[in-house]
């Protein structure tokens, strides 16, 4: 199943962030969305994940229309996201953040929480699954640390682990390596490649062209709420008019 949108539009106080945008993401691989500030990249992710309602147009996961679904329902359908600004529960351990993200927890129901029927076994399973994703992103040893005590790059990894713990098939990552130490950038990009190879679909917004060249299978260039080009990185990123628009 892949994400696609038809004629999406969104304005803020008269400024068009998305303008009649029609786009189909491939069912596999890593897709990079690039473009100048204000091109509508983050707005697109906010709309596709239900955090913003579009003014017009529709979007789908496979054949299922998601356009009017709230954010939590879209996440449950397998579309997870990270944010430009880190969103975590800083005052609880790293492990708790990831366990929170596990889907369909019986212990989240009122009566199950009170009477604890089957909750302990489920918590054990969720613990194991959360640890698996923490090990995957390299934070296994930091599981008991408070999330707020991690470095910025580690917190980026933690947000990725939270996304993965939701069992989402599609990951929308908003600037996953922005402001991160170069070594950590390399690590995050490697993880993205591993996830792609494991069958996850990854869409990420990025300003760093070197990172895009390194991992993207497809590049989508946006400007003023529209897609102005898309194709393989080697083709798109060599076009002078694209780079000119991007730099502008």
């Amino acid at each position, binding site marked *: 199943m892949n994400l696609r949108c038809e004629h999406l539009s969104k304005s803020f106080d008269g400024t068009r962030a998305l303008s009649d945008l029609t786009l189909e993401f491939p069912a596999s691989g890593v897709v990079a969305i690039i473009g100048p500030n204000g091109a509508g990249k983050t707005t697109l992710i906010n709309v596709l994940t239900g955090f913003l309602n579009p003014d017009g147009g529709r979007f789908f996961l496979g054949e299922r229309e998601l356009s009017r679904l709230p954010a*939590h329902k879209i996440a449950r359908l397998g579309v997870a996201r990270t944010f430009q600004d880190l969103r975590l529960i800083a005052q609880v351990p790293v492990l708790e953040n990831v366990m*929170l993200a596990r889907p369909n*927890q019986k212990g*989240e129901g009122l009566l199950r*929480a*009170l009477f604890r029927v089957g909750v302990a076994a489920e918590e054990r399973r969720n613990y194991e699954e959360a640890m698996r994703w923490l090990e995957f992103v390299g934070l296994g040893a930091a599981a008991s640390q408070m999330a707020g005590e991690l470095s910025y790059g580690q917190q980026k990894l933690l947000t990725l682990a939270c996304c993965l713990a939701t069992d989402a098939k599609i990951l929308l990552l908003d600037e996953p390596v922005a402001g991160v130490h170069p070594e950590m950038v390399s690590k995050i990009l490697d993880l993205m490649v591993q996830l792609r190879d494991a069958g996850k679909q990854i869409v990420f917004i990025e300003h760093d062209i070197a990172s895009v060249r390194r991992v993207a299978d497809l590049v989508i260039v946006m400007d003023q709420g529209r897609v102005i080009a898309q194709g393989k990185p080697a083709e798109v990123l060599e076009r002078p008019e694209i780079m000119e628009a991007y730099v502008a």
Partner: protein
Amino acid sequence: MQYVLHILTLVCIYNILAVSLEVLVGRAGFLSVAHAAFYGLGAYTSALLAVQAGVPFLVGNLAGVAVAVAISLVVSLPSLRVHDDYFVIATFAFQVILFSIFKNWMGLTQGPLGIPGIPRPVIFGWHVTTHLDFLILAVAFACFAYFVVWRLTCSPFGRVLHAIREDEVFAKAVGKNTLYFKMTAFAVSAALAASAGSLYASYITYIDPSSFTVMESILIISMVIIGGAGTLLGPLVGAFVLVTLPEALRFVGLPDAVAANLRQIIYGSLLVIMMMFRPRGLVGKYSFGK
């Protein structure tokens, strides 16, 4: 001795109110100023059933809880869609409306005249009549309230509430229906407050609207904040301090002419000083408003 037992019974009743509000304020991060309204709903429902229909205490108590839960769901559905300040205003409006109903629906609540002659509880043949009996009952109710709040907060349900308090957007992004959790927390909070109201009505044997004003809501909020939000010990400490402090000031030996006013000034000053030097409350984890 009777006086001490009376104060301890009030501590237990306020303890239930404070720990039930803790679910909302300390765990989910929502400030409700309608807690006295739910307290009153429980009190009026069980009192009316007991006085007019002879309904036993426990049944009346459960009826009060059911009414409070039903009304909390109606109130919270629109209120919890708005955020922070707007939620406070919405609950304030509800508090004012309910107080007006208590005060003006003469046919049902007898308005300012109140409802006298509320029977003392009889529970499975146990006639709760003495101060000691009532203290035992109040302790049992408080333990039950603590048990409920502890089970909820130390569970995956509580984990989501904590996430909502810290970052609701994050909770939504990982697939949590935050409205459901907030409504459920509001309903649990209202249910326990109503239970405390029923207990209060049968203890005092008389209720009138003056016990369920917005000032009462603020007193309960103060208990949570001064005791310390985010812990189970906080509401216990807060209820104990705020019930016993005004009583302790009675024994300071203030001149009769100014005693009442001075007590209020001393009481208020102590609260201000405490908030300045211990903004997380006496045993709390969070600064209020975080």
